[in-house]
């Protein structure tokens, strides 16, 4: 039996959870500590915590804030944003992260993925890819929160990243992020088709149906979403009930200790 993981994502800027649209325009959504706690209690299988400007401004994420958010959240937490050194990863792990998501620094210095995997194990290293569709239908990997293009093909980069030691791939469609138009199935399919490691799909979740499609058609191993959960339109438990009706295995949360 394989459970599909449902993973809410917190985009962090300063002390707030914000919601980017196409990873650019930002709206303040709420307090990260409260949201994380709420998602944990509602049955989130993991959390993704991304400081979306750390990399752009070449600084580190706020480890104290992370610590306060990860406290009392007894599910795995993947943390990203400006991770550039082994020391940064150590700091993240000591502040409550279980895995780190690496995008910008890995694109500039791919060998960092191997170095990190050797030190912490592949299971700890998530290759984070921000993909933008090009006119010819291929996808290019972007950095710095979808602002800078790298000239590198997404699928080739994903393959290389896994070879270098990434244990999971988190793939975001920059075009769909925040639009609620549904996941970019083409993109997710291309990655999931070859990937020997789990693929987490993100960007564009609109309703439970769009989540079902990215599992069945996109072949995602895990599904991440932010807007639909942040604004309370959908509860994680409702999405899971829907998926269960469609014969998708998901974990049942039971808050009984």
């Amino acid at each position, binding site marked *: 039996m394989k459970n599909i*993981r449902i993973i809410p994502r917190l985009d962090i800027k300063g002390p707030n959870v914000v919601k980017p649209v196409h990873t650019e325009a930002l709206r303040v959504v709420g307090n990260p500590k409260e949201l994380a706690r709420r998602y944990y209690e509602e049955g989130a299988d993991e959390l993704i915590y991304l400081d979306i400007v750390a990399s752009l401004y070449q600084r580190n994420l706020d480890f104290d804030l992370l610590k306060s958010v990860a406290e009392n959240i007894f599910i795995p937490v993947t943390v990203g944003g400006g991770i550039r050194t082994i020391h940064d990863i150590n700091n993240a792990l000591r502040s409550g992260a279980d895995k780190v998501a690496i995008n910008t620094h890995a694109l500039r210095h791919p060998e960092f993925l191997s170095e990190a995997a050797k030190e912490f194990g592949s*299971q700890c290293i998530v290759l984070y890819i921000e993909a933008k569709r090009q006119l010819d239908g291929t996808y290019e990997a972007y950095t710095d929160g979808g602002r800078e293009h790298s000239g590198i093909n997404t699928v080739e980069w994903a393959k290389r990243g896994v070879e270098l030691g990434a244990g999971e791939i988190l793939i975001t469609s920059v075009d769909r992020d925040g639009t609620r138009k549904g996941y970019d199935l083409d993109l997710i399919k291309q990655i999931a088709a070859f990937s020997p490691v789990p693929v987490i799909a993100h960007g564009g979740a609109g309703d439970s149906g769009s989540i079902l499609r990215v599992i069945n058609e996109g072949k995602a191993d895990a599904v991440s979403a932010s807007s639909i959960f942040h604004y309370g339109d959908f509860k994680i438990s409702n999405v899971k009930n829907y998926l269960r009706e469609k014969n998708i295995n998901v*974990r049942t949360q039971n808050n009984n200790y």
Partner: protein
Amino acid sequence: MYGHKITIIDYGVGNLQSLKKAFSFFGVNAALSEDVDEILNSDAIVLPGVGSFEAGMRGLKVRGLTDAVKTFAAADKPMLGICLGAQLMLGEGHEFGVFDGLGIIPGKAARFPELAGGEKIPHVGWNRVKSPGGDIWNKDFYFVHSYILEPESRENIFGLTTYGEYEFCSVIKKGNIYGCQFHPEKSGAAGLKLIKSFINLI
């Protein structure tokens, strides 16, 4: 009841904060320590761990903790191994070569075989744990691993999990010594309940 001394063995990198938090959720201050005396004077110990088998054993050795953990186990005081910590309790590990483990429970940590359904390795995510005889557990826990627990004797199998069509041992047990392949501190309420049961062994 919760005034007991529980020590989480700190022998390298990793997120030990959530494990500590899981104990404090029940009012227990579990101390992180790499001190031999502190470990031996504990009522219960936890051997956590992420990373490779060899690196884990090396982490224990360079801190001079191998004998302390074995001595503690020989006294049959409550001990909980988690993920790599559970694998280290076995006789040997087969990750990047063959390495000696702590030998507390006979057996080995072996690589997942290639699975018929092409399931991905590492096995990442939530999966069901059942007891061999029935459904004592029957709850989902969070796994992330490429190697599995293979105790020599069926008597030491305390929990089983199926990935694809493949059934493997997910919990080992010998007396008061337990090792689980999954992460109770990352397994929501089900994991916290396990931590509570462990505290209650003291």
